[in-house]
């Protein structure tokens, strides 16, 4: 027999109801809360294996430092950012696959392309196809954003650019050349698109600012070549007054170490655009004094307390020096995070509108600011300059800034030459 309550509700019904409420309170309510705090997933495609694995490691840390600070401050209305990082093995088709996987299977709402340039072009097409907000954080190839045919409204570049570096390097080298009467030049750059473009543009701008400069020879080591004897012999035989090189990473370290054995630095001035990055500076066994280099990233340039603090914070968190890729990824992530706060949305179009033309406050920008130029969606006003090495930390103590107005004027001229505008 079933006892009924005065309102006609049975004991079993009451027990069932109580059980349901209890279940809802233990399963249902936290579920609602969990849905509200669902992380915003950001997918990073990068290289975590092979010769350039350091690129991925520094890129991940650069992005993570910003994301951790954002999450610690409460995220986006309680929603934290989750960074998912995958290794493309430096293969464009794998980068494209991972980018699609992030969007289609992992539920990523934003892409960070921290891969090589070839992969960046592949990911640009994914951005075009899917319309997802994409930040290219490492590709320095100018055409990625300069060529209007490749333009994607939701894709941006937060990295330095080849044409900017060439103008900055050419103008600095011309000044030194005029002062020291360095007229006979040679190039020694890696034999692939970046090396050939950088070499060509550097000499183009050197000659523009210093009419007497003459290129007497060029030497093209293969990418990841271990032995530079052939190139060094050619340089020593040609007796140039100055050498330009855009070798980078382990290749540059090997080249500098082997050049020291041949006593190259006593016989010629060397302009190596990629030395001033801690990965290279700390890897060279005996860093020669007086090599000219562009500033990739230095905690002493810009010489501000904010930059030194940012560098120190990074070193404390990760127990290693920040690199050029660190700030580029930090900057890209910060543009995204600022846009998220501004729009309170993860909609790619809204975020892109917020990022286009925006400025962010960061210690590695000119006057503490970086700008994402509207129109071609690329980064400008990052700190760039040239200086000479010394053997100990701070390695490149006196970096001379290059004027951004000149860079932008000449960039416009270059774009016209390339028929981009």
């Amino acid at each position, binding site marked *: 027999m079933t006892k009924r309550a005065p309102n006609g509700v049975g004991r079993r019904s009451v027990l069932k109801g109580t059980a349901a409420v209890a279940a809802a309170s233990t399963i249902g309510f936290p579920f609602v809360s969990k849905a509200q705090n669902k992380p915003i997933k950001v997918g990073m495609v990068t290289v*975590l*294996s092979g010769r350039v*694995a350091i690129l991925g490691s520094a890129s991940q840390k650069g992005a993570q430092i910003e994301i951790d600070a954002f999450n610690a401050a409460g995220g986006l209305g309680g929603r934290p950012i989750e960074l998912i990082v*995958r*290794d493309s*093995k430096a*293969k*464009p*088709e*794998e980068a*494209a*696959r*991972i980018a*699609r*996987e992030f*969007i*289609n*299977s992992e539920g990523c709402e934003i892409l960070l392309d921290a891969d090589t*340039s*070839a992969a960046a*072009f*592949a990911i*640009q*097409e*994914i951005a*075009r*196809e899917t319309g997802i907000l994409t930040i290219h954080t490492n590709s320095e*190839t100018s*055409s990625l954003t300069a*060529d209007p*045919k*490749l333009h994607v409204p939701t894709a941006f570049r937060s990295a330095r650019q080849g044409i900017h570096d060439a103008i900055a390097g050419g103008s600095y080298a011309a000044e030194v050349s005029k002062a020291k009467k360095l007229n006979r030049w040679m190039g020694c750059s890696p034999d*692939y*698109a970046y090396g050939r473009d950088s070499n060509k543009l550097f000499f183009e701008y050197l000659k523009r600012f210093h009419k007497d400069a003459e290129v007497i020879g060029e030497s093209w080591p293969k990418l990841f070549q271990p032995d530079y004897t052939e190139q060094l012999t050619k340089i020593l035989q040609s007796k140039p007054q100055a050498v330009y090189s855009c070798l980078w990473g382990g290749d540059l370290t090997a080249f500098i170490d082997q050049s020291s054995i041949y006593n190259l630095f006593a016989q010629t001035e060397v302009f190596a655009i990629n030395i001033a990055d801690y990965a290279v500076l700390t890897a060279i066994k005996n860093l020669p004094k007086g090599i000219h280099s562009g500033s990739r990233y230095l905690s002493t340039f810009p010489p501000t307390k904010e930059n030194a603090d940012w560098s120190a914070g990074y070193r404390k968190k990760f127990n290693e020096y920040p690199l050029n890729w660190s700030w580029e990824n930090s900057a890209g992530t910060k543009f995204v995070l600022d846009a998220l706060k501004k729009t309170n949305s993860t909609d790619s179009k809204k975020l892109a509108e917020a990022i286009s033309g925006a400025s962010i406050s960061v210690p590695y920008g000119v006057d503490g600011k970086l700008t994402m130029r509207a129109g071609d969606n690329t980064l400008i006003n990052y700190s760039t300059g040239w200086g000479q090495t010394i053997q100990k930390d701070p390695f490149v103590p006196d970096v001379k800034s290059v004027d951004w107005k000149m860079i932008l004027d000449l960039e416009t001229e270059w774009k016209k030459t390339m028929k981009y505008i």
Partner: protein
Amino acid sequence: MTRSSLLRDSLIAIAVFAVLALLPFIVPGKGFTDFMVRLAAFGIFATSLNLLVGYAGMESFGHGLFFGLGCYSFGLIMQTFPVSIPVAFLATVGLSIVVGTVVGAICVRLNEIYFAFVTLAFQMLLHSLIIAWTPITGGDQGLTGGIPRPPFLGIRLDDYYHLYLFSTGLLVASLLAMYHIVQSPFGYTLRMIRDNAARAPFLGINVFRVRLMAYVIAGAFGAIGGMIMSLFVSGAFPDFAYWTISGEAIFMIMLGGITVFLGPMVGAVMLLLLNDFVTKMTTHYGLVLGLVILLFALGLRKGLMDFAADLWRDRQTPTSGPRPDTAAKTAASAPARAGE
């Protein structure tokens, strides 16, 4: 191979395609369709390599020549000329036949390691050409700017599902065509040349011509795989013509097996799944892949489908007292070569 078996296999292919067409509605998410598009590209590529390795005994190390050629020629045609996709498709297949004939005429005269290395040399020649001919190919940045996909016959390849149908349709059609080739008298001639190239001329077979035809046919299918890949990434990259892409196809047929027609397809599934899962878990993909290859090479000593086929054959054979004629047949079927 009779007309009725062609009809039967065609009906099976249509049924398989119908099932594939329905699968995206059962398996949700675009991750599945992406996987199948890549599988179509690599499946056709690996199976076409097995036409040479498994059936003709021609161990090509440079089959990526055609994969890269397919990617680049299809991409360049679509970017340069206002043509439809079927026209670019046919033009690419045509180009691969021409290139296959010229390269094959040089390579197929050679045997074993000499053949392997000359094919590899031609592949690296294409790779060098791609790197050096920057104004046309984009050099080491690849063919950028996307591949136009004008609609044709109501098919819009910028739509995920349409690209999936197109790719899986090509996969099924290519597998059907290759299956019929290996089951045809031509296919059996290939096996004969593989097993005894010296005896074949005494039976009136022009070994050079047959080997050249096999090389050209395999190349044309390899190029179809490349075309699908170029649609997947909407571009073409020098990696697609690098020797490592040939290495991947060799891994696929090693993992899947060379004696069963669908072995390379199974290998392609295994290698792609392995890549996708391992990449999610660790950055030591190379180490894991190496261990798996070792397991197959030293453990099974053959591909998965070869192992399964041998197991099945063993189970079919009575364990005690087989009749002498049955034992002879079993012994004849033992060699692990394709199609036996």
